[in-house]
């Protein structure tokens, strides 16, 4: 029923897109994790203006569509003289968008560590940042790994947005193959399978971690 020649004939094209999807996902993950940690710490730091900035970031970004952020970086920024190609613009948008969810997950993790520990660490002479790094974050990480894993799966799926801004990802090349061959059903089935190859193992991995971390308490 399904014509495999469409996969074999255009395998290089699929593969090129697949590579870019993986690359965008990895860069997006690292970027969103770094931004997420910074925003989370800002939200709970004992400095009011930081709290405001952190809260504004999280509430604004996670309540608007990723597509707007992607378009903003792709066609909005050039209006003020900053030129980014589809891949870069899309990947930055992914990192910024996902960071708002990761920041919330990390904040929840940090807040779940009993307050007394911070006080104890501070009174033993550590600065706020030192206490955060040495005492609070290592414990919080365990709680936040499963939700962050879920965000990573979302990030992989959301990376398909690159297809709309010529970001040369799997979705983009799938589209190109289908518009050049006039075959849609089989082409999209294969695109879907490529995504599943990435997301299904991730889902199982996250669930495994969830179970293992739950046991370690």
């Amino acid at each position, binding site marked *: 029923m399904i014509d495999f020649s469409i996969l074999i004939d255009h395998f290089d094209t699929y593969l090129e897109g697949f590579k870019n999807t993986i690359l965008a996902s990895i860069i997006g993950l690292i970027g969103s994790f770094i931004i997420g940690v910074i925003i989370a710490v800002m939200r709970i730091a004992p400095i009011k203006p930081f709290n405001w900035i952190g809260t504004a970031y999280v509430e604004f970004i996670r309540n608007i569509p990723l597509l707007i952020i992607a378009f*903003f970086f792709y066609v*909005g920024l050039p209006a003020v003289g900053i030129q980014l190609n589809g891949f870069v613009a899309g990947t930055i948008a992914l990192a910024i968008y996902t960071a708002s969810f990761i920041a919330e997950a990390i904040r929840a993790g940090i807040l779940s560590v009993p307050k007394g520990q911070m006080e104890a660490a501070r009174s033993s002479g550590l600065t706020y940042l030192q206490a955060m790094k040495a005492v609070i974050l290592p414990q919080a990480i365990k709680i936040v790994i499963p939700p962050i894993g879920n965000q990573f799966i979302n990030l992989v799926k959301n990376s398909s947005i690159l297809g709309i801004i010529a970001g040369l990802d799997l979705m983009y090349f799938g589209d190109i193959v289908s518009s050049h061959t006039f075959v849609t*059903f089989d082409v*999209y089935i294969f695109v879907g399978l490529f995504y599943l190859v990435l997301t299904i193992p991730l889902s199982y991995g996250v669930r495994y971690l969830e179970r293992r971390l739950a046991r370690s308490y």
Partner: protein
Amino acid sequence: MDFAGALSADHLKFLADGFWVTLSIAFISILLSFIIGILLGTLRYAQIPVVSRVVAIYVETIRNMPLLLIIFFTFFALPEVGIKLTVTQAAITALTVFESAMLAEIVRGGLNSIDKGQIEAARSSGLTYIQTLWHIVMPQALRRMVPPIVSQFISLLKDTSLCVIIALPEFMHNAQIIYAQNVNYIIPIFILVAFMYFIVNYALSLVARRLESRQA
């Protein structure tokens, strides 16, 4: 940047039309997703041989696919196997297929959160399994599901923007038509569109939080 030109009265009206489409499509889709999500979630929870397994595979497959691909597939690929949908039907179908898989997991989570002891107690008092599910488990679970369902509605409102690829005349699509006229409109229009989404979704997220804290 030309704020006055970009946000003229005519343009605002045109954007409002698009926003209304976004709201309606998202609302219809969440209603349908809720119904199908309850069915799928319950079937998976009930551990009926074969059926629950099939539902699980379906839900996991859909949940692990990009929504964008599902929209493309629904509109461009389904006609090849004889399922022909108009743009609006395709948009609602794609959003519902994706979102109902998400809701199925919320429903299952809600059902799982109900103490198994209650089920045993109800069963031993003579209720059938189905009766127990409907009279005892589901009403409690439904209450717990409301906040995550509101959160899913927020996602759905955002995700509706992806239907721009099949030229559904929604918010983002109408925004594109306006900023295509003039480069100086791009940033003002982006700011307005982002702000509109923010207001509606932020209000909804406050509702979700209120509901959550009331339950806690």
